[in-house]
């Protein structure tokens, strides 16, 4: 963006602008530069493309997405959808994707809880609580995530006993192959519980709205939180028992060398989840601390001067203002966690990168297609997030004066 003295009448030396050499005209120069840049990029793309075509021909790889319909022929230890060795390569993509989603969602929930707890604890007036939280953050933030995953997987979970010597607690079994839990199996009639939950949610929303209106009109406060909690927990529970407990537990049993039945949580998932949670929580804690510190002290004092009780000060004054600062970096932490879940491949948790960009890529050799599809998934996710953030920031900006 060079300055534009030529268009300035003070600098014009009597000559009309048509006499200015075109390389001295910033507008034309910029245009020329951009044309050259595009030409260079197109040239480079053409050159690289030509290399790719020759290389692929030499290796006898045909490009295209036809391989997705071929039979995969390898097993995946954890799958949320139906999958067998006879399934297609296309299906491995979705199995991997869902496993990525699974560990990311679990990690996000746990890391948020732990992160908020530690972030708030770091601001505690209690010296020991504050110092230990600070210690937690400083330790786990400064150690590579991959190392933490290895630690949990190879040093902790690999040290668990073999299936025959499983640690048993309340019908659950823990051994080197994973954690075996009883699986709740719904029977006929369980649908009523879901309906009850839906009804409870709608009713809660109505109660909240009514309580809000009444407070606006009369100033009386209705304890809506307790009512909502009672509705959401109580109504489905009541329905469950009134239709005769339509659910039984499928207990894991030791048969031969391993457990059958029940719900199995593989150690790879546990190790990855633990490491992602602990690592990301350290960053979330810092975000939360920053957000709370960003609320001006006067807000707290003003709220106390108005006579608001401490909990209500927190809920109505501090948290809403802190959240405005916290949410954008929090979202980018969530995104980081999701991207970091790709480290799964190092311990063999079957996520998208491990299954699709790992095994499928090695078996088919379709590097271009597989890597592009994998990258596209993460890219879509991050573009969606940044669009959502843009929308959120705009909405928040409107609230401000």
């Amino acid at each position, binding site marked *: 963006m060079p300055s534009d003295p030529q268009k300035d009448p003070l600098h014009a030396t009597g000559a009309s602008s048509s006499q200015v050499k075109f390389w001295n005209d910033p507008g034309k120069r910029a245009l020329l530069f951009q044309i050259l840049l595009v030409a260079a990029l197109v040239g480079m793309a053409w050159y690289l493309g030509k290399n790719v075509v*020759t290389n692929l021909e030499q290796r006898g790889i045909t490009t295209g997405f036809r391989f997705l319909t071929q039979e995969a022929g390898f097993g995946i230890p954890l799958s949320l959808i139906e999958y067998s060795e006879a399934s297609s390569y296309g299906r491995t993509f979705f199995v991997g994707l869902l496993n990525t989603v699974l560990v990311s969602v679990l990690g996000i929930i746990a890391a948020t809880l732990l992160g908020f707890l530690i972030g708030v604890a770091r601001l505690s007036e209690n010296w*020991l609580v504050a110092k230990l939280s600070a210690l937690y953050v400083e330790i786990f933030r400064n150690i590579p995530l991959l190392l933490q995953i290895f630690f949990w997987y190879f040093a902790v979970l690999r040290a668990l006993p073999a299936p025959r010597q499983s640690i048993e607690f309340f019908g659950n079994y823990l051994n080197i192959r994973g954690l075996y839990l009883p699986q709740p199996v719904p029977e006929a009639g369980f649908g009523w519980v879901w309906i009850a939950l839906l009804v409870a949610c709608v009713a809660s929303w109505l109660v909240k709205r009514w309580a809000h209106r009444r407070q606006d009109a009369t100033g009386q406060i209705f304890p809506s939180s307790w009512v909502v909690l009672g509705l959401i927990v109580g109504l489905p529970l009541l329905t469950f028992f009134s239709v005769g407990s339509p659910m039984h537990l499928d207990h894991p049993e030791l048969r031969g060398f391993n457990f059958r039945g029940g719900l199995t949580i593989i150690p790879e998932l546990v190790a990855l989840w633990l490491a992602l949670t602990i690592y990301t929580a350290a960053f979330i804690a810092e975000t939360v601390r920053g957000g709370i510190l960003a609320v001006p002290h006067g807000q707290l004092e003003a709220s106390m001067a108005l006579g608001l009780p401490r909990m209500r000060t927190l809920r109505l004054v501090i948290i809403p203002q802190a959240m405005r600062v916290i949410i954008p970096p929090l979202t980018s932490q969530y995104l980081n966690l999701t991207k970091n879940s790709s480290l799964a491949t190092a311990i063999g948790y079957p996520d998208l990168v491990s299954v699709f*960009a790992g095994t499928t890529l090695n078996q088919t050799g379709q590097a271009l297609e597989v890597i592009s599809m994998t990258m596209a998934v993460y890219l879509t996710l991050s573009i969606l997030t940044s669009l959502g953030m843009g929308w959120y920031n705009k909405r928040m900006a409107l609230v401000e004066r």
Partner: protein
Amino acid sequence: MKYENQPTLPPPANTIGVIGWARKHLFHGPLSTLSTLLLAYLAVVLLGPLIQWAFIDANWVGDSREACTAGGACWVFIEQRLGQFLYGFYPGDQTWRLNLSFVLLLGLILWLAIPKLPAKTWVAGFTLLVYPFIAFLLLRGGLGLEPVETHKWGGLSLTLVLAVVGIVASLPLGILLALGRRSDMPIVRTLSVIYIEVWRGVPLITVLFMASVMLPLFLPEGVNFDKLLRALIGIALFQAAYMAEVVRGGLQAIPKGQYEAADALGLGYWQKMILIILPQALKLMIPALVNTIIDLFKDTSLVLIIGLFDLLSIVQAATNDPKWIGYATEGYVFVALTYWIFCFSMSRYSLYLEKRLHTGHGNRA
């Protein structure tokens, strides 16, 4: 009746000294007391066995696993393999070259980090433009030095090579991208935005996979990069996008008046940027830059996935050695401590800089 001032009484005994401090900071309410007791109990329960394992029951000297008899940590493992952990498979009589290049680097960085020392610009220029060639010559060999192939590089020195090259290569590219993103030229701006957002949107692993699997496809016949170079290209391209965002933050913090003043002086675009804007922006963005460098440093451990033997990878391989099987924890503790020392000291430095550069007025200073 006495009317003269009495001497001030001392404060009540339970509000001063250790007791007063403890009452104020540890036991100032039921919740606080409860959490103090709970945490203190946990700390004692966890810390005791940890100290027992790491120090009291540990074995420090010996030359094989037979020396580890005390039941605690077997630091003999680390001691025996330390040379490999630091230098990889670099020939033993040539390790002085690694030492020399890193001591040189450390000297340069210290020179840049200590505020009082003069001629920062020249030293920075030397570090970014001349030092890489010296280091390359020392590490790779040539000009009378015995050549050492890159597949023999490993351990902590490889980690440092990855980090340093990643920084040095990505910074100029990042500056160009940041300038491009703030450019008036629509095509340049769009291309920069696409580049930055694409690289920031994907995990480093897929980038490394791409560098190791896809990059060879893009090269003409007969041209072949070695594994380390491919990883370095991947890391540098990836890191450039993050650097660009850091630089953009610095550029945005420069008041508009500076741009206008440079324009008013009749400086061209590059003169304006190099002489006026970037020197100010670079100074402002050092803390953010250090944070990005910390992330990069930790991320270099990912090269394990494509089969390079960096610090983590070489320790991981050593823990699978039948001679030392079962001592994975010791290995991980060693690696964690090494990374931690590097990252923690960098983050402290960044914090110190933030304080030094801080001129605004926070809510609670």
